[in-house]
């Protein structure tokens, strides 16, 4: 399978990428690791006429300690996150979730910024950043803005990034310790989650997010509210599928996904002691 023809330009900085985006408009796509975009281009589900390669913008690969939170460069690869000592100590859930994406080859190429910008509700990292209540930093021609992860995912493969904006950084609150868990349910190695659940203690609150339970990654608000009201994990988990519209596909019906969400939420809450 060969992608449709396109013009290729390489950006050496975020600034250059943004000015190229402004120049080419919605015909262009940013290429980071390419592990979401290239498969879609090979299937010709995505047909950009220009690819702006940002894979060599080296100064956007990092994990930095910023006091109460960590800043992660958009072009940081999953394999880097998986083994990064700072992330493993200060935000272990994110390092763990990165290690569950695809397979080692995918993690050598795929980037966290690419995964979030792709906004696939079946992906692991978007749901983890949502559970953490992270912030997405976007840079455009008029400067930088911060987008709360709760406002970032707007629809099926859609985010609130503007056409001339580039995701440059992800900020997550420090959440050290053992009160976290990620349940990824799939039937084959390297697959996407049929359903996934991320649970993590951030400060005084217990946050729960769901993978592949709607057109975007979502917070299990009913579970969080029940926990806040003092209900135990087992009973709170019964609300995991409340107000969700899970998709249907060859792997699972909406009813099966709802069942999985309740079971996996219970497991995630119990395993993390939340």
């Amino acid at each position: 399978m060969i992608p449709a023809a396109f013009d290729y330009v390489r950006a050496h900085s975020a600034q250059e990428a943004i000015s190229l985006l402004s120049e080419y408009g919605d015909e262009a796509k940013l290429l980071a690791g390419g592990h979401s975009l290239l498969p879609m281009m090979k299937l010709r589900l995505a047909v950009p006429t220009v690819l702006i390669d940002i894979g060599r913008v080296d100064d956007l690969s990092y994990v930095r300690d910023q006091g109460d939170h960590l800043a992660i460069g958009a072009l940081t690869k999953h394999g880097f996150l998986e083994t990064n000592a700072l992330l493993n100590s200060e935000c272990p859930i994110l390092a763990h979730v990165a290690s569950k994406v695809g397979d080692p080859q995918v993690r050598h190429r795929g980037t966290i910024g690419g995964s979030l910008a792709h906004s696939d509700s079946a992906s692991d990292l978007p749901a983890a950043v949502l559970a953490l209540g992270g912030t997405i930093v976007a840079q455009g021609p008029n400067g930088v803005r911060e987008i709360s992860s709760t406002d970032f995912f707007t629809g099926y493969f859609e985010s609130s990034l503007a056409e001339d904006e580039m995701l440059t950084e992800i900020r997550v609150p420090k959440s050290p310790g053992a009160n976290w868990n990620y349940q990824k349910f799939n039937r084959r190695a390297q697959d996407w989650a049929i359903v996934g659940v991320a649970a993590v203690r951030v400060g005084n609150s217990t946050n729960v997010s769901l993978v592949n339970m709607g057109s975007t990654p979502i917070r299990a608000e009913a579970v969080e509210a029940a926990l806040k009201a003092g209900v135990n994990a087992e009973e709170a988990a019964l609300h995991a599928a409340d107000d969700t519209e899970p998709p249907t596909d060859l792997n699972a019906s909406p009813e099966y996904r709802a069942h999985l969400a309740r079971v996996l939420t219970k497991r995630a809450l119990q395993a993390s002691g939340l």
Partner: protein
Amino acid sequence: MVLGGYASSFVLARDEKGDTVEISVTVNGDTKTDEVEPRTLLVYYLREELGLTGTNVGCDTSSCGACTVHVNGESVKSCTMLAVQADGQEVLTIEGLAPSATELHPMQESFRENHGLQCGYCTPGMVMAACSLLKENPSPTEIEVREGLEGNLCRCTGYHNIVKSVLACSGQDLL
């Protein structure tokens, strides 16, 4: 993004376009300079431009790992990388692994010794993925080998001896 029927007519017209870009890639130690279309996938560049057909195309959807090569020392699926992305980078394929024409690389030797292959189609990718795995984790457990080769499928289901080959090459006790 363009979807559905609109995509096919639109895309067919664009198939005739063929602007090329010059790339310079170090493959198995030799620097190669070529003109490629931007949409050329690394695996097709290796196989069809350079004649390095040891790297196989299996699923062509980044699932099976038959096309695994190393880019700058790390395993990647060359069906899911553009040749232009390899510009200026170092690529190692199965042909470049052995130290000489008469010697095998220790991982190749271990696959041979432990019968780590049946039909052989997945083997180049398995060997490249296994070398990358041991570079990151020199003494993996059996489970770590199995998880580390998660991205490589053997359609003969010959995993037992593949895992045995990797463990043997890591200098550990066999299963």
